[in-house]
């Protein structure tokens, strides 16, 4: 297995940036889209929570994920606790696997991230199946594949503010 050539040296993350990124993801989730895009749209909140659970486990963990799950539940009109349960389980898996995932190169991260998000969605589907006796169909899981594909872009974007300036002496 390939291992990322070298760990970048990054500036510490500002807590405000984490909060901002999570709320932007929540806004993206609320964006009303056409029914086709709706199927392939990734769950941005889950992606961001997963990212920060891997990068900043002391700042974002199971509790934060649970709170955002409740917010998503209210916004989506799902049963209260459905996303909260799935997100907290996802955060737990991320916390357990985080060293492993952050060591991997980006293309290997794809499989891990997609799998974790698929497990998260499976929890939601299962809860819905138990509570309402409806199976939503396999197309529901497409969102996780899109999320996996978008992962490298997200990683790049979220690391930008922490990149040190090329030469600290030159302002």
């Amino acid at each position, binding site marked *: 297995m390939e291992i990322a050539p070298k760990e970048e040296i990054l500036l510490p993350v500002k807590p405000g940036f984490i909060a901002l990124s999570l*709320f932007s993801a*929540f*806004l*993206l*989730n*609320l*964006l*009303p889209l056409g*029914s086709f895009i*709706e199927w392939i749209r990734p769950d941005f909140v889950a992606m961001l929570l997963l990212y920060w659970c891997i990068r900043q486990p*002391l700042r974002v*963990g*199971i*509790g934060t994920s*649970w709170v955002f*799950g*409740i*917010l998503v539940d*209210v*916004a*989506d*009109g*799902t*049963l*209260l*606790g*459905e996303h*909260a*349960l799935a997100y*907290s*389980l996802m*955060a*737990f898996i991320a*916390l*357990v696997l985080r060293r492993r995932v952050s060591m991997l190169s980006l293309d290997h991260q794809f499989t891990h991230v997609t799998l974790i998000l698929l497990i998260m969605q499976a929890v939601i589907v299962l*809860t*819905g199946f138990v*509570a*309402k*006796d*409806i*199976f*939503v*169909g396999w197309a*529901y899981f497409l969102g996780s594949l899109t999320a996996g594909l978008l992962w490298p872009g997200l990683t790049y974007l979220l690391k930008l503010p922490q990149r040190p300036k090329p030469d600290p002496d030159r302002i």
Partner: protein
Amino acid sequence: MEHELFSRGPSPAVRLTFFTLLSLLLLVSDAHYSYLKTLRTGIATAIYPLQRIAMMPVELLGAMSDYTRTQSSLVKENTFLQKQNLEDRAALLRYRAIQQENDHLRQLFGARARVNSPSVMAEILYDERDPFSRKVVVDKGLQAHIIEGSAVIDNAGVIGQVLQVYPFTSEISLITDKDHPTPVQVLRNGLRAVIFGFGSSNLLDLKYMSLNTDIRPGDLLVTSGLDGTFPAGLPVATVVTVDRNPVYAFSRITCKPVAGVNRYRQVLILAPGAPLPPPIPAAKPELPPARGKK
């Protein structure tokens, strides 16, 4: 006793157990009881500004397409609307005459005149993302005096029912939702039934009709008004297929909604009409003469 050098609170496993139990508690109480309605309303009000912000790009796009619309299309639409207006007016005149006659007849029969319930026009903001139910959110809520349980219709027929009212929005459960029964009546022969959504498709299921029921494809189903929520006589669905397989206890009847359940943006919310008339008092038994103190 062991001291941890870097104490970080409870371990992830403990936290996961705690939050899982909390989620399960919420899930069960939300699915079976209504304790959490205030909590949900509170959170919904808090995130309402964010929802409006998320709506902005779509509204902007709509405004731009309105702005760039050509004059010819406007003229065409105008002539069409004028023609329709004329036709509608003719129909309205006929309707008024019939209504007058109807009122008169009702008076003759001693029935109470049917009150036209007040209605509020609302616009659909977005479909909810919940894959397990069919709901939309409209832009009128408590501030427009929307009442929970009101019927929602469009120009063709019934769309659904108000499920929950928030301060500025309300959630509407569509008739295609699996948990949404609507009492209906076959227009042709007055047969009463209850129609349910399939949940997964845009179709409806007429349940509990015996195999020899007189229902044919193409029959129009209208609300029967028996639930006291939907005014009687609103079109709901047309029958598509009738499957009389003797293997099952009931015939399987699939229907298609008449209203543009997934198409239109403007809907009409009807306030629940006048309360049901009091039951006709049966012949009163003679009261025994009062005894003792009052």
